[in-house]
């Protein structure tokens, strides 16, 4: 189910018996910028098209979607990914949300903590020495190497 938030809006409209000028109805999306929205619409259209082309073959659909996703990632800047996640989340578009989360996960994988903080615009709110203490006390196995 794509764009569930938008569908919800349509359902509500029908319930209120407003005349179906569906093609000209304006839906307010205050939390979504135009750029991520454009990408999401393209993604959705492409997904539906690929699905229609490979009606029964689920594997083929998956493969083609993967190829399309790889290409899409090349065009999108890593910083835009966080906006795309927010847009997909607001619009309740599960497939796109999962895809962009996957993309962010591979972008921050094996990167240093500083890199991750910069990526999300976060600051460390651990007190001086608190972080060190926690790291020592609750050390896990698999200490990876920090790269940037």
């Amino acid at each position, binding site marked *: 189910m794509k764009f569930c938030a938008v569908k919800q809006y349509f359902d509500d409209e029908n319930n209120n018996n407003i005349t179906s000028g569906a093609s000209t109805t304006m839906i307010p999306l205050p939390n979504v910028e135009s750029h991520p929205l454009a990408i999401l619409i393209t993604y959705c259209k492409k997904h539906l098209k690929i699905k229609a082309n490979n009606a029964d073959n689920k594997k083929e659909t998956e493969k083609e979607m993967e190829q399309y996703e790889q290409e899409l990632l090349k065009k999108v800047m890593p910083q835009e990914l*966080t*906006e795309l*996640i*927010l847009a997909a*989340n607001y619009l309740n578009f599960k497939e796109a*949300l*999962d895809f962009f*989360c*996957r993309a*962010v*996960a*591979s972008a*921050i*994988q*094996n*990167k*240093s*903590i500083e890199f*991750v*903080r910069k990526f*999300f*615009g*976060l*600051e*460390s*709110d*651990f007190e001086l020495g608190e*972080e060190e203490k*926690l*790291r020592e006390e*609750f*050390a*896990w*196995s*698999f*200490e*990876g190497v*920090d790269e940037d």
Partner: protein
Amino acid sequence: MANLMGDKKASFLRLVEERALSKEEKKKLQDALVPYIPKDCISNVLLRLPLESLQRSRFVCKPWYTIINSLKFIDDHLERSESVLIFISSIKEENLYPFSTRPFAVEKPNTFSVEAKLLQSESVPVLVQPNINPTLKYYIKFLEINNGRSKIGEYSVSCTGHIRAACNGLILLENKLKKGGLIVVNPVTRKLISLPLGTLCPADKESYGFAFCTVTGEYKVVHLFQDELRYFGCEILNLGTRVWRAVNGPSFGLLRWLGCLPVLAIGALHWVPNIDSSDYLVSIEVDKERFHTIPLPKSSRYHDRIVEMRGFLSFVTHEEENQIGVWILKGLGELWTRQLSIKTGCILDMVPLYSLRIKGDMIFKRDEDGSFYAYDFQLQVMRKIEMEQERLKMSGMYHPHVNSLISWSSRERSQDVFY
């Protein structure tokens, strides 16, 4: 003089005010540039990270620390984690000094010793701790099978005893420092707890099962042991209360062999009672703690096994014409249904070991040369696994395992959370 000081103070104050304002403005600007991402989106991203990255992500900021330590995240993470095989490998096999003429074993630096941590938690002063000869220790490692290849992972954790059971990422380890001692460890988070002594018994006359009881939400350890009169006794311990309770064992004569690890599926632990020609399974329901037998659809032979498959119990058996049949039991009290036959690539001495909980492949190991094979149910292909090392040096048995962040008690974890 006083005037000058006053001026300096005033200008200093103005400087501080200006600095404070610009910092606030900076923050506002930054907030405007970087949107706030809701917690479940952060979880969605973090759940996809490999454990090394996840470990570091804990320290990005306090909200992330709280998310990763939360019960929901840990459970979701477990759901998405693929099965591996956990095993121990003797330290003396990994000689750091291959040209020395004497057997000389040295523990690798930065190794977490289970026994040392245990003694530390029992407040035994360091000087009094026994110095365990490294030749008697083992490293805990795991084998990952993915896409036709295998990879060995290391936890950098050492122990003195064998792994007796595994469940949801927790393992039951022998503690050789205490006769009959047992420890429950999560080798990823390195959290561990010692269990009280149960009934002492020679290792070849006992078997342990480790299960999660979905009804009560607790972990249980089941100890089956055989006395000199060949009666089987049974005692069960809840990880919450940590007290052994005696329960009725299986009826005399039902169970004749403890060579196989019990399999946890459909709410019960199942043992194959004979090394060859078993017509039934001996099972104990995890919740009701009662033993009964489950008839098998056909006799289980030497290389046949039961395997947990996506929560169901499967019986994997070698058949005529070099085929392998797979039967499924979906619930206690139901009937076995024949799922499918594997027609290609079967070899008689292929013993089914475990199934990959996410990908679904069934993994086999050949008796003759210890090689691994994977059967892909979707592509219907049996594939030999390329091993990272030619001969896997290990001791004891392989246990199906999953690398998770699970802890046995939610109370244990409440210290890790910032509100």
